[in-house]
């Protein structure tokens, strides 16, 4: 069936609410408003205000309430409107959700799912556009998911809800309107492995979330140049699926990581280090990276576009690791940092 990323997310929510009476959705404007980005539209009417629960603007308290309700036997889905707002709940996510199991010597399980919208690309400027999933991927005790496809948007939630531990799902805002075909019987998907979205032999492109589709577009353009690029969609940022990455790099001997987070201390930095640790002698070139320019995301369209990883920069980074021309593509200056 034809659907969108937004509708796939909604189908996942509806499915979870139907299947398990312990599940409820809680967050700012998830109910009567229908969700800030219309993801939960219609669920309030279908499931009522108890199970599709509007909250005050109290990120810390309602995330903590999700943690407490999880300990108390429920299966809460907590929605944080955007990743920037998640910082207001950082205490609860890091000091409690990620920590209680260990601090209690294995007694206190926290089966909460926290969803939020991440990423730039919609001219929402510097307080609604960042990509902090890499920060959360730094935290032991959290599982961090980044659906980039309709299948994952539809299917990751139910699997996350089966986890006895906290799971964070980062849904990319720029993908909400993405449409495509989804199988009528699409359902839960596994969340343990990265996926190879395109096979190739010359270079491995590693990415996740909103940059998957730019990376696939770059791979397509590279194919026209005779470069065969493999594209890995990480899907899960913690724990990372090292095996899939190393197996691919072991075949292609070159890697470029595309990450909408800032370069310093990013998911891309972590993956680059792991490739160095685990596959150094397989490499024919240093690992390349395409990340967001290290500035708060600007409003103006041309500046925002220039700040983010784009197809020309991804192609340029691939050219670099292949030892080819690197400074421009089709006369377009490469502004995103590639070194």
């Amino acid at each position, binding site marked *: 069936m034809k659907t969108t990323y937004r509708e796939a997310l909604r189908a996942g929510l509806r499915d979870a609410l139907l299947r398990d009476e312990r599940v409820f959705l809680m967050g700012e404007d998830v109910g009567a408003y229908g969700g800030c980005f219309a993801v939960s539209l219609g669920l309030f009417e279908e499931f009522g205000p*108890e199970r599709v629960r509007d909250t005050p603007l109290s990120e*810390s*308290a309602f995330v903590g309430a999700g943690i407490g309700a999880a*300990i*108390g036997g429920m299966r*809460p889905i907590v929605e944080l409107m955007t990743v920037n707002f998640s910082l207001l709940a950082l205490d*609860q996510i890091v000091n409690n959700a990620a920590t209680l*199991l260990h601090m*209690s010597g294995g007694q206190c399980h926290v089966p909460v799912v926290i969803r939020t919208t991440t990423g730039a690309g919609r001219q929402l400027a510097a307080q609604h556009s960042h990509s902090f999933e890499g920060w959360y991927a730094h935290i032991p005790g959290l599982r961090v998911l980044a659906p980039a496809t309709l299948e994952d948007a539809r299917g990751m939630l139910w699997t996350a809800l089966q986890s*006895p531990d906290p799971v964070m799902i980062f849904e990319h805002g720029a993908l909400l309107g993405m449409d495509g075909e989804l199988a009528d019987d699409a359902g839960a998907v596994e969340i343990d492995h990265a996926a190879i979205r395109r096979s190739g032999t010359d270079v491995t492109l590693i990415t996740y979330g909103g940059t998957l589709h730019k990376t696939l577009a770059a791979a397509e353009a590279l194919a026209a140049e005779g470069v065969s690029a493999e594209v890995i969609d990480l899907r899960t940022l913690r724990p990372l699926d090292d095996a899939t990455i190393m197996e691919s790099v072991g075949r292609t001997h070159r890697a470029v990581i595309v990450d909408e987070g800032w370069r310093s201390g990013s998911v891309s930095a972590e993956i680059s280090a792991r490739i160095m640790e685990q596959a150094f002698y397989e490499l024919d070139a240093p690992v390349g990276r395409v990340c967001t320019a290290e500035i708060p995301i600007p409003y103006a369209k041309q500046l925002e576009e220039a700040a983010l990883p784009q197809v020309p920069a991804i192609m340029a980074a691939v050219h670099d690791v292949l030892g080819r021309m690197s400074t421009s593509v089709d006369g377009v200056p490469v502004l995103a940092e590639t070194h």
Partner: protein
Amino acid sequence: MSPVEPMMTTEHARHLQHQMLRIRRFEERCVELYSAAKIRGFLHLYVGEEAVAVGVMEALAAQDAVVATYREHGHALARGVSAGSVMAEMFGKVEGCSRGRGGSMHLFDVATRFYGGNAIVAGGLPIAVGLALAAKMQGQPIVTACFFGEGAMAEGEFHESMNLSALWRLPVLWCCENNFYAMGTALARSESETNLAVKAASYEMPAWTVDGMDVVAVEAAATNAVDAIRNGGGPHFLELRTYRFRAHSMYDPERYRDKAEVERWKERDPITMLEARGLVDASTIAELEAAVSAEIDAAVAFAEAGSLERIEDLTRFVVSEVGAP
């Protein structure tokens, strides 16, 4: 509205005195063991505040849940976490109530529904909201008691949690242990409104100020509040005025308060105040002291005999193990 004290029987007074003595003597032993380097890290003593935990716990039932702070030895003991498992936790042993992963500040015991041991000031309040929300959604007559110091009332999480609990009429008993100092900062130096019950009452919930040095008054107030909460009355707030006789932790020169002030408060020691009611005679107190001493000796022996977690198991309990619920 002021709570009516229940008729106090000799037997019940004996029980309350026993519970307070257990906490007092346990912590005194902890100080010795700290000096002997058997216990390390931070050690926040509850000495002087025992009537609060003991009085509130008396009002709770087995199915109720408790969330406490990093000064929670007394709450754990009064809730029924064994002295041996608490002491073993301080010793960092596997037999500890948190397997030695938490220490003094993070005592947990899911069996008695004791959910920590939270060392972020006000960090436990949202969890109490959630425990109460779960109980309400499940239709269970469970009350969640959440303890926090008055320092927490300057945190945003306090206000967010008051609002959510009142907005959703959740079964929470908020227990503010006002010992007048947030670490070393006096109440009047950190709060524009020092009448704390007034702050809570602004969230449309019943809020009382209680003499936290009088265990009978605490129990009476908590019992009234818990009954009301269990009957659907929504959250209630108790400001329990108390005093910490000892330093904030083991590294505190106490430059911020007068010795004379401390001495004045010691005249209202909750243990001697209950004694003064004349319900428990000297020979009974001697019996209780002997029983407590034996219990603590056994707890220390249990902790000493405990085992250390193997280094091979260092990374356990970061994620749940197979078969977890």
